């Protein structure tokens, strides 16, 4: 069941070029939606204006080598392993959702364009099902337990707001897609059609709703993460105080409260507020 290409069966009722046209249309909508979103919210304009304003606060100039190093660490830490999240559960859930979605999209493109027949390699079809399951695992974990609205605001899981459009349409796409594929493989005709219709509707909302959802975060978040590392490296630090060495005699002379109350060589005090998860609403 998981080794067969669900789009090959679909191609027997809907012409293959229509299916391929739909996938291309969705890709165009994502690109177009992201560009319109950027123009509408002026996010790129704001981003570059802020970087320009930070120039005056720089304490050192970054060379091309520094920037390449920062770009590599951004890709490795912030993008590939979702390093920005301070909550480890959220980070794991995001990794499942992100890699599941990437797998789902890549295998969909492979199954629709490269292997649109029943002879598609079993591994590609299996990865398509696995990708959907990964998104569902990470996504439902996030939706019911990790989401800040539920975890810190104390609102019930069934309250839906505009911010939920992305996660709900993503979960809908993978859930309905997976259920449709399973029902189709089992030959349940009526329900297959129902879930196919739901799959198409929700997938269209996901890819066409970029302007209104947070789909575009996958493009601007890496840019923000890169900028966050740049401001640390060039010393501008968005006007945040400099990191300090409490055992430095010059600093102790400037701030005599430090040696008076904490000693000449203050120990590591461990975690205070951050010892507990924010769940005291």
């Amino acid at each position, binding site marked *: 069941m998981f080794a067969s290409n669900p789009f090959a069966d679909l191609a027997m009722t809907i012409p293959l070029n229509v299916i391929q046209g739909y996938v291309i249309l969705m890709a165009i909508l994502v690109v177009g939606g992201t560009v319109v979103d950027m123009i509408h919210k002026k996010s790129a304009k704001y981003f570059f204006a802020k970087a320009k304003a930070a120039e005056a606060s720089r304490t050192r100039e970054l060379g091309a080598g520094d920037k390449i190093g920062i770009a590599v660490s951004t890709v490795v830490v912030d993008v590939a392993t979702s390093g920005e999240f301070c*909550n480890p559960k*959220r980070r794991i859930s995001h990794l499942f959702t992100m890699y599941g979605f990437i797998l789902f999209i890549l295998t969909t493109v492979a199954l629709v364009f490269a292997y649109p027949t029943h002879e598609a390699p079993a591994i590609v079809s299996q990865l398509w099902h696995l990708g959907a399951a990964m998104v569902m695992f990470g996504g439902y974990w996030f939706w019911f337990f990790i989401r800040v609205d539920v*975890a810190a*605001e104390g609102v019930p899981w069934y309250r839906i707001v505009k911010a939920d459009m992305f996660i709900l349409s993503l979960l809908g796409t993978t859930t309905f897609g997976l259920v449709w594929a399973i029902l189709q493989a089992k030959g349940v005709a009526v329900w297959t059609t129902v879930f196919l219709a739901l799959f198409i509707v929700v997938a269209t909302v996901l890819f066409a709703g970029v302007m209104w959802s947070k789909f575009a975060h996958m493009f601007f978040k890496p840019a923000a993460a890169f900028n966050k590392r740049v401001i640390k490296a060039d010393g501008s630090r968005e*006007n945040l105080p400099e990191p300090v060495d409490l055992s430095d005699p010059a600093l102790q002379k400037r701030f005599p409260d430090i040696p008076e109350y904490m000693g000449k060589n203050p120990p590591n005090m461990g975690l205070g*507020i951050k010892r507990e998860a924010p769940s005291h609403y």
Partner: protein
Amino acid sequence: MPTFVYMTRCDGCGHCVDICPSDIMHIDTTYRRAYNIEPNMCWECYSCVKACPQNAIDVRGYADFAPLGHSVRVDRDEEKGVIAWRIKFRNGEKDLNLLAPITTKPWGKFIPHLKDVPAPSSEQRDSQLLYNEPKYIRMDDGGLHTLETNGLTLQKGVQY
């Protein structure tokens, strides 16, 4: 000086929502990022500023604190046990850096075990003194401590 959130820096973790004693830090329903829903009701305790792991919350200072257009930023380092404030004026030249201890002992390891303390006697209950008051104001150590007994004099005016 109410607080506000840089939404591009916020990752919506909920620490500020959790800690705000005024319950005015909430999650935006469009972008799922934190924001101060009612700056007029902000107590200016800066718990959210200090708790934010992303340094995404800032203080909007009043004009009598520093000329408008300034920046007030804080970095609360729990592991070092210090809090650092930086106030930068809009001309970029006046740049104040302040640093102060926020603890002298490791966090959570010296919590008094009050349930192990014997219950107060009826004499202590009838007394006007609060719990441990004689000890904390050092009444046991030479009676009431005043400026005079410590050889100090009150200086008139504001002393800095």
